[in-house]
């Protein structure tokens, strides 16, 4: 078992003396020897040797599976929706006519059509899909578990020294559940801040201001180390820990060229920029590619709101074509650069949408059976895992849980599935408890 401490504020890398005694208690079934082993392991580096990264297209609000990947052309009109399926590069796979570009690279794309969880409200569902765990309740809606992005930031880290490991474009979403929680605030995502398609897109303060030299930054860094001596034990909120880590990171970032270059979309060939699409999705996908190329290990693109309770057609007409272009171009671009094996692409939201169209020409929340998409990263493409019922309502084959999806991601990124972190109560909590990687994608 691999175990990592959750906080830095107590003895034994997170196992405080008191917890130490409690952990020895029979309640948890851990003997002293086990505990010593955990402690020894905790001190080892857990950073897996991997060059894999993840790019996520997060369909915040819930994208309709039935109008995109899992079409039901033979269902009655009130189920099948307005789009027709089209053939793809894989003979027996059909997708919506609004995904013509993905259709051409379907040999790289696999779908899981049998994702299921048991909540139909945005926030708890987003928590479930982002963390693998059901969590927030009426009594408290605060996030309870770390997001997979933060887990990746903490375990894999950045592949290059100066890069932020975990980035969200343009900002974090998912109702506040894309953060690190007890992993520590320093594993929260770096928010890009603005739409990469905007002509004003720029990360502030990446270039040294005029008059400031590398040498003086260097001596400032040394001085800061000497004088930044406030007792770290005074803060339990994680603010100081976060400030420490971001200060270190910021100083590294500005002294290297790497980060500034990674964020500089203008250095990209304009034809490629056009190919990705001059819109939010396209330029975000291009930026994501540049970031993983430069060393980020998880980039999440938050693709706006897909909560189409009303007039779903209008919403999808606006959102599907640019999403299609962004995903398909990213796959092609990665392939041409020989990076597709190393970059896993994942497209999902907190749930799908009801199979039946409602009275407002929209679809409601549906977590009973919905589809997510994987591509690259060493998964087998051109596959369909699981199946939904005739009209899409339920899973008929291979029920897949949010945690199965996370286990698949972690496995592909080389993160041991029994990695543990101490939660806020000091209890070692597994990044995966009941989930299994989807072996059909291996």
């Amino acid at each position, binding site marked *: 078992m691999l175990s990592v401490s959750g906080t830095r*504020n107590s003895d034994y890398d997170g196992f405080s003396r008191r917890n130490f005694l*409690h952990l020895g*208690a029979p*309640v948890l079934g851990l003997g002293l020897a086990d505990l010593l082993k955990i402690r020894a392991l905790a001190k080892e580096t857990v950073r897996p040797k991997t060059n894999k990264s993840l790019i996520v297209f997060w369909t915040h609000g819930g994208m309709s599976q039935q109008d995109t990947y899992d079409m039901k052309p033979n269902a009655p009109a009130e*189920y099948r929706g307005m789009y027709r399926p089209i053939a793809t590069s894989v003979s027996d796979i059909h997708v919506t006519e609004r995904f013509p570009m993905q259709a051409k690279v379907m040999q790289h794309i696999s779908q899981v059509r049998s994702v299921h969880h*048991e*909540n*139909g*409200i945005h926030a708890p569902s987003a928590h479930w899909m982002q963390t693998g765990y*059901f969590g927030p309740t*009426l*009594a*408290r809606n605060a996030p309870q578990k770390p997001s997979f992005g933060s887990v990746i930031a903490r375990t894999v880290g950045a592949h290059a020294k100066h890069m*932020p490991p975990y980035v969200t474009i343009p900002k974090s979403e998912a109702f506040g559940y894309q953060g690190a929680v007890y992993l520590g605030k320093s594993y*929260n995502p770096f*928010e890009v801040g603005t739409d990469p398609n905007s002509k004003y897109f720029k*990360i*502030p*303060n990446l270039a*040294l*201001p005029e*008059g400031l030299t590398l040498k*003086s*930054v260097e*001596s*400032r860094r040394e*001085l800061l180390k*000497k*004088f*930044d*001596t*406030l007792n770290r*034990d*005074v803060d*339990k909120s*994680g*603010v*100081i820990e*976060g*400030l*420490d880590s*971001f*200060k270190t990171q*910021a*100083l590294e*970032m*500005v002294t290297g060229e790497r980060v500034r270059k990674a964020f500089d979309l203008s250095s990209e060939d304009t034809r490629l920029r056009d190919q990705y699409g001059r819109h939010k999705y396209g330029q975000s996908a291009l930026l994501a590619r540049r970031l993983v190329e430069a060393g980020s290990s998880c980039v999440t693109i938050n693709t706006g709101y897909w909560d189409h309770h009303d007039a779903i057609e209008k919403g999808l007409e606006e959102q599907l074509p640019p999403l299609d272009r962004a995903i398909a171009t990213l796959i092609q671009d990665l392939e041409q650069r020989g990076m597709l094996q190393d970059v896993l692409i994942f497209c999902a939201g907190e749930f799908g949408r*009801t*199979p*039946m169209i409602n*009275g407002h*020409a929209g679809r*409601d929340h*549906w*977590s*009973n059976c919905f589809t997510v998409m994987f591509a690259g990263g060493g998964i087998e493409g051109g596959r369909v895992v699981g199946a939904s*019922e005739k009209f899409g309502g*339920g899973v008929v084959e291979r029920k897949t849980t949010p945690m199965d999806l996370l286990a698949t991601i972690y496995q592909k990124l080389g993160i041991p599935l029994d990695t543990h972190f101490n*939660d806020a*109560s000091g209890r070692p909590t597994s990044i995966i408890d009941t989930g299994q990687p989807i072996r059909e994608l291996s």
Partner: protein
Amino acid sequence: MFRFNKMLNFTEWHPLVAWLIVCVLMLLNADLQATENTTRIKLDQPEQKIYFLTDVVPVLTKLNCNSGGCHGKSTGQNGFKISLLGFDPELDYAAISLEARGRRISPADPDRSLLLSKAIGRVPHGGGKLLKIDSEDYKVLREWIRQGAPGPDPDAPVLLRIDLSPGDQVLKQNSNLKLQVVAHFSDGSQRDVSRQAVYESNYPEVATIDKQGLVTTQSRGGLFAVMARFGDQIAVFQGVVPYNSSEASQHKAYPSPRKLSKIDQHLVAQWKKLGITPSSPADDATFIRRVTLDICGTLPTADEVTAYLSDTSPDKRQRLIDRLLERPEYASYFALKWADILQNRGSGYSTSKQRAGTMLFSAWIRDSLLSNKPYDRFVSEILTATGSQAENPPAIWYRSVRNTSNYVESIAQCFLGVRIQCAQCHHHPAERWSENDYYAFAAIFSRVGRKGGFADAEVPTNEIIYLKNKGDVRNPRTRELMQPRPLGGPDFSISRFDDPRQSLAKWMTSPENPFFARTMVNRMWGHFFGRGIIHPIDDARSTNPPTNPALIEELAHDFSTNGYDVKRLIRVITNSSAYQLSSVPNQTNQEDTQCFARYYPKRLSAEILLDGISQVLDVPTIFPGGPGQFPEGMRAVNLPDENVRLNFLDAFGRPSRTSACECERTDAPALSQALELVNSNEIQRKMTDKNGYVERLGTNTKSHSENVRAIFLRTFSRNPRAAEEKMAVEYLNSEKSRQEGYRSLLWALLATNEFMMNH
């Protein structure tokens, strides 16, 4: 387009009838199906009457059928819609017994009822198999159907209250406690409903609760509350889990009760229960920095620190607090806080002429604080504001707060500490608030009229607020006409010549009001301690109880019986021993984050941090808009609204003032903040300004030692330790350029946690 009726016919034979219920909160499996012998319904006595409201609905609630993810959501689930958490039994009864051509229940052959055959999974069900055929819940539902599925019965005993036992307790870590819930009915009967009640813990890190009402404490100390709900009744259990055995904490370390204020006595009582000893008192240098930042939002100057440290009088802390409260910076700092809460917003009005209005409102707030206007009057003037906004600045509040939901939600959250948003569409699931409460409250504002308007005004902001003759609010679901009534208050009996807002202000600010004083004292406590006694500070619920009820009552009583004197309230809080504790934890209180046994450090908020840097470097910020826009040398804290672009302020969590929630302002660390500090033009400019402090250090004739001591007093409000002074002087000697040396040193000190935190 698909219509409801059509769908019902369709579902008669369609396999997708399967999906009557979909989502189930949490794990509903084995533990739910386990039968318990706590129920008092004797099913072997067929004459026992099963009531819809108190027997059937609770089963639907416990099984999550009526949860927000399933049939309880506003659109229902696949044609079956019941009310969220069972708060509308008439609707539920109609949905179950009448819709779907009555197939959901079948009294002639109860087991064939869809309600049952779905729940046990005999007929495919989207929500899965929820019940076992031999379970108590199944028997209850079956027996109800067999009795003819009677609807809500006006003669049925009414649920009056539920009792949760045992009462509040101290529990050991890693221990269990079974809670029992007893329902009391209007016919005098009682029933154990532990199995039917639903439970939630507000602090699962400290203690969890399962579906049967079994509390399990974890391997740490702390306070927690468990909510139990049955029908429309809620009861709360509060538990204390000691961090340490009482022997481990040294009671002798507590100050003697004689010396303690009432506030401190309430805290000490709790610390004893938790087995924690408070940290030692903060030293003078720490205290002057802390209290100056907390009251005035500024750093003390080097001279102030020196004078204070050499003062030997025993009441110097008290006198310092008094002095700070008289300074204009006090009013500026708290005006910033109130401008956030009152949403004094500059953006979003599609005109650039709004600055005059935000300045006017902001100045009115500042003047109110400066003159220590009693808090009840301050609030009343805002609530009842009438007339031209240009002449009566509090009416500017009505600029950002413009419609029914704005009025209700802003006032409830701002002044009553209640988040009532849920009740706009359904009964608040964790509270007593119903839709009628919401819309009756809204009715108070139904006659607020507006004339003129700012968009086309010659004079900026000249909207006029007046009382209309007419204006109704109806409950949108029942269409019932609502009489103006405040939350938890009486109906106002007023004529149409009276402004109901006057009655609201009177009700709200009366000393008997249960929310008003409590919300303000909690807000102020949260300001000084970094955490409310109720936390989050504007989310008072019976299910989110204060961590120290006696303490908050004490403060509220003191506040309301002393004329809502805000400065007095601040004195009471800042003169307490608790506020003056060190932030450095000891062995016993290091895990505590709820009980104020030490000072919890806070990061300086965006404006305060920027102003602090400006103060140390003696270079004011230049705000966009040119010199004509704001006075030269103005501090960020005095910005009238948020619509002044400054990346530094946004990176450090300045709110956009779009809600009444203080939570919009954040202190979460982020990489962009570090980049601002390390690498922004603004900081670089302040470091290199020809008239700034760095330049003066570089050209003065004082020794490095002398300068270093002055620098430490200026930034950290303390003298350097010997080792620090030595390190700094050594560095300065090693640096060829004197200016560059001081610049780097200052930069480093400003980037330390010690500078960025109030600790």
